[in-house]
């Protein structure tokens, strides 16, 4: 049951992401990405990470994607199509790079160098995760909080009104 769910969620996630990256309209792309992130959150839950799954839904699918949607709608990008995509000449290197990496991934799955390495039943209670986060990894939490503070200051600096004459 767990295994079947894992594969269904995995292919749902890949399909939603594929639809996301091929959209021309940014709003559609973000909506598909939210669907993919929900599938990923359920995969986290299956892999025994309920707290990470909850935060994936709250922070990623909730806050970050809404921020994207907010910017798209504030700038009025939704009805406007992206200028015509790159021609076949420009697609060549892209297709070559992506397909070679993808073929390597498929070959690795078929060859299966990790044969028999199964992820057993695992469930990490949020309490244990929180204790680790604030004891062994307290320094990392402090550094990340500093980074969030710097990001706030940086966003404020970038959001200041432009000097006169530089705004078109």
């Amino acid at each position, binding site marked *: 049951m*767990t*295994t079947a769910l*894992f594969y269904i969620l*995995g292919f749902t*996630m*890949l399909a939603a*992401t594929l639809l*996301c*990256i091929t959209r021309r309209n*940014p709003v559609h792309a973000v909506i598909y*990405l939210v669907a*993919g992130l929900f599938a*990923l959150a359920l*995969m*986290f839950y299956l*892999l*025994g*990470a309920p*707290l*990470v799954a909850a935060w994936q839904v709250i*922070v*990623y699918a909730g*806050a*970050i994607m809404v*921020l*994207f949607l907010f910017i798209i709608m504030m*700038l009025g*990008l939704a009805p406007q199509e*992206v*200028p015509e995509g*790159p021609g076949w000449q420009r697609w060549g*290197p*892209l297709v070559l790079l992506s397909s070679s*990496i*993808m073929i390597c*991934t498929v070959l690795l*799955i078929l060859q*299966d160098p*990790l044969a028999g*390495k*199964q*992820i057993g039943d695992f469930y*990490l209670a949020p309490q244990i*995760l929180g204790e*680790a986060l604030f004891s062994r*990894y307290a320094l*990392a939490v402090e550094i*990340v*909080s500093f*980074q*969030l503070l710097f*990001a*706030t200051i*940086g*966003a*404020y600096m*970038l*959001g200041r009104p*432009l000097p006169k004459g530089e705004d*078109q």
Partner: protein
Amino acid sequence: MIPFGHALAFAGALFVLGLTCVLLHRQILMILIGVEIMLNGASLVFVAASAYWRQVDGQVFAILLMAVTAAEVAVALAMVVYLWRRKRTLVADEFNGMHG
């Protein structure tokens, strides 16, 4: 029971899709979305490894990665708004000058 290799394969495929999105699009917002997809692939590797080795560390790093991503998105979207105000366009090719 989930094969560890297949969890890694899903994460790798997600990363490649994100890379494709970065290379395919010329609009800055779509490039940012591609970066988001790649970061999600990375966090799937962290969580799967955490479940495989039955350690807490991978999940801690997945959460830290989420916080780092939130910071990155805040600055990057502020930059998107700044670039839009400068040139009224978000096509990455338009921003090719370095004059202050």
